[in-house]
């Protein structure tokens, strides 16, 4: 037996001795978690942006369709993807009250409950929004009810957007995630994604949402870039394991995801497109906007992939306490 085969046989000896990357939520079937989380960000982001646009009557149709797409992102993509990931998907109901009181402590359980409530309130709001957008019923009563459900669905939409960040930041086992900044990063990146996507919806409906969405995108992308820098700097000084995650993300095997996906396509390209149109005073061409939207969406996929992929466990032994 040569040394290499012997080492493979003794694989238990290497368990948690050195920092070890989590694989459950990113490898094999775990890729479903990644996709579910991306749809969570895109869906909630688009829905939340849609309710802001719904406040203005001239954007009613765009807000309606954007809201529908956001809702579909959660109901048809995020939830089923999460369910398929489960080892026993048909026990899904076990996470819901009254079958479980786990929502008291578990962010996962809270998230599932919040998502379901969001979907119910969101569906009602979208029906009301549809009535307004297509002039089926435009009374002040419908407007008032729409506002009420906008607030309710908005609150639960925000919770749906942030719970995944909280679920991850709860894990002391993975220092890179174990920070309160993570839910904020996920929420704001999701809203920025929503702003990009609503421009696409606006192009189809013909309503002039692009200037408003672009000016908001400009600010949000700059805020997000600063937030990501802050997140990485914070992690870098938090612990040796978190520092290792940062290194892996910016210089390691997934560096291309970070620099190409998150930084270039997710932030720089959309920012350049919106800044150029700001200085030239002209709207970007349709082709350029579509390109920026696609880039932004790739950025959303890259962000979740990068963060999940470099989730590294702190070693188990006291010798590794420095980690």
């Amino acid at each position, binding site marked *: 037996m040569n040394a290499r085969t012997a080492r493979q046989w003794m694989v238990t*000896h290497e368990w948690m001795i050195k920092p070890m990357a989590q694989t*459950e939520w990113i490898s094999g079937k775990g890729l479903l978690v990644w996709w579910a989380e991306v749809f969570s960000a895109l869906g909630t982001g688009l829905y939340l942006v849609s309710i802001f646009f719904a406040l203005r009557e001239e954007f009613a149709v765009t807000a309606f369709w954007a809201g529908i797409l956001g809702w579909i992102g959660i109901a048809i993509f995020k939830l089923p993807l999460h369910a398929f990931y489960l*080892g026993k998907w048909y*026990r899904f109901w076990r996470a819901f009250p009254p079958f479980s009181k786990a929502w008291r402590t578990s962010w996962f359980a809270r998230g599932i409950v919040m998502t379901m409530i969001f979907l119910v309130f969101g569906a009602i709001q979208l029906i009301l929004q549809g009535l307004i957008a297509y002039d089926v019923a435009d009374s002040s009563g419908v407007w008032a009810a729409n506002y009420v459900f906008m607030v309710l669905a908005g609150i639960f939409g925000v919770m749906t957007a942030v719970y995944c960040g909280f*679920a991850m930041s709860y894990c002391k086992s993975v220092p890179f995630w174990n920070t309160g900044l993570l839910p904020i990063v996920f929420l704001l990146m999701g809203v920025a994604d929503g702003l990009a996507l609503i421009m696409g919806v606006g192009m189809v409906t013909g309503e002039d949402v692009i200037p408003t969405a672009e000016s908001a995108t400009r600010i949000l992308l700059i805020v997000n870039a600063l937030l990501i820098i802050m997140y990485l700097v914070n992690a870098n000084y938090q612990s040796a394991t978190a520092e290792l995650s940062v290194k892996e993300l910016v210089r390691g095997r997934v560096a291309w995801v970070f620099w190409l996906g998150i930084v270039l396509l997710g932030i720089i390209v959309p920012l350049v497109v919106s800044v150029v149109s700001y200085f030239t005073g002209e709207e970007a061409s349709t082709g350029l906007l579509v390109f920026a939207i696609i880039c932004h969406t790739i950025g959303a996929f890259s962000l979740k992939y990068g963060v999940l992929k470099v989730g590294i466990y702190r070693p188990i032994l006291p010798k590794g306490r420095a980690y």
Partner: protein
Amino acid sequence: MRWGMVINLAKCTRCHGCIAACRIEHFLPLRMTWPRLIALETDDGFSVDVSTYPVRCNQCKEAPCVEVCPTEASYKREDGIVAIDSNKCFGCRYCVIACPYQNRTYLSRKRNPNYFPEHAKTGFEKKGKQIYPHQVGTTEKCNFCMERIDAGLAKGLKPGIDREATPACVNICQARALTFGDLDDPNSNVSKLIREKNGFVLHDEYGTEPSVYYIDYKLGGAPSNKAPIEAQTGSHIQHLSSVYAPSKEKLAKKNAD
């Protein structure tokens, strides 16, 4: 009452007996491991030093795995044991990630082939399926042999004292490196060991309050507990030499010193 275990690192001879005992006791699937024997190797260029740590679920008092479980499949018993109800677990693996000690394993189809993958199930496996069924798609971990404890207590036996009521790995340990007992009883064998030999837990800064304690010379600092060099048995040296071939002479020299 809070069941706990003390692991004397100086006595552990790295025989893997505890790993085997647990596998047999619970008919563990081929690629499933509840306890592990992990080794921290330090090589200063002159001598190779390998500290071995038998690890298993710490049955934490403040268990993150219980807190995160969305189905309440992971629960804490009154005697401090953290257990999993595999009929409730839906396999989200949140607990696997949240356990700071990585003591949980998800039983996937890949981890559950026949013991001889190209062949039919052995009689042992068939019996195991009836006696201790494991559910693919759920998460598993060491449960302090709670079935033995419960059955033993029902017969009026004392876990940690009477073999029939004591965890299988503790029973098998030929070096008596593992001790089991009640942490809440100041006069129990485990409480005394922790007190007298500076017992410590892994990563106490997490605030998880593990029920598995370790004692040794290097980390615990109790001089009476210094590992005798003969604890590194011949078979162990042989095993190491096959893993780290270049260090054979260094180890031989160390033993001669």
